[in-house]
């Protein structure tokens, strides 16, 4: 299961890179549609980096919070925060991608040190344990399912703006 998780997690990062590769700084915070606060690329990258570095994957795996992640404020990127259509409010694309990549690297390294038996243990996170009683399920949810949900949002967000499929 660990190999499979690592593989899918790595694929997610590659997909994230492809989804934002051709975006201009202005496009990173575009909110097409009726004016609703749609999750844009800057918010999604920052949110996923926050989850990797601070309160999701790193927390589950018992990692310290990386100092470099201090720019990822929960008010700007936490679950329930509202994305704003102003590029000046967000770190640029390279910075956000760099933070996401470094978060992935830390998480992947920590996960690779775990054993299959450990992933069968109870989930050490009360909020997640109710839905995913086993550690492996909670990790699959956070590393793969949660990330891909937001990347799917970005995929559709691109198409609404007339950008090509990646």
């Amino acid at each position, binding site marked *: *299961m660990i190999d*499979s998780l690592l*593989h*899918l997690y790595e*694929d*997610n990062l590659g997909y994230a890179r492809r989804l934002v590769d051709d975006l201009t700084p202005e496009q990173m915070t575009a909110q*097409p*549609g*009726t*004016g*609703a*606060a*749609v*999750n844009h690329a800057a918010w999604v990258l920052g949110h996923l980096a926050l989850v990797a570095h601070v309160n999701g994957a790193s927390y589950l795996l018992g990692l310290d919070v990386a100092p470099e992640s201090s720019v990822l404020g929960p008010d700007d990127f936490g*679950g*329930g925060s509202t994305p704003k259509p102003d590029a000046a409010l967000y770190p640029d694309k390279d910075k956000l991608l760099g933070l996401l990549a470094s978060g992935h690297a830390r998480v992947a390294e920590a996960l690779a040190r775990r054993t299959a038996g450990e*992933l069968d243990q109870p989930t050490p996170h009360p909020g997640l344990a109710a*839905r*995913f009683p*086993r550690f*492996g*399920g909670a990790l*699959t*949810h956070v590393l*793969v*399912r*949660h990330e*891909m*949900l*937001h*990347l*799917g*949002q*970005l*995929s*559709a*967000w691109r*198409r*609404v*703006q*007339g950008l*090509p*499929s990646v």
Partner: protein
Amino acid sequence: MALEQEVKVYQSQLAYGEMLLEGLAADKAFELICDGGVNPAWIMGHLGLVANNITAMAGGQPKIDVEQWKPLFGGGTTPATDASAYPAWDELVSVWKQGHADVADAIPSISEEVLSGENPIELLRPILMTTHDFLSFALTAHESMHMGQLSTWRRVQGQPPLF
């Protein structure tokens, strides 16, 4: 049991999908909001087709005519707004929901030999080499990606976030 945790995640996607679909009228479900995009009807049909394919892979009996659904909902197909070309909305949702139950029942019967064997979907083999790799992806990342598309489809039309 192999893939037990992945099945757990797969089942949890059902509840989230139901939240995304709550209150969605049948005629609205076929609406496309942009060129090249997908609508809820296509997403439900596509995920229902995948679920039936997985069930068949495990030796179970599909609940739909897979060959009829493939040209409508197979990967790479283009959704049309003409609802008359598709199964009814209620049927699409029902097949998707039933598919989750069928997959959960079918997965435990797949042998280790099959799981470690070559991914039967040739197109995906370069990135998902084994049947286990494919199922792990299909139960978690694949369905979630399409749920994300559904989420954006709602949000750009002004509907509020669910969380």
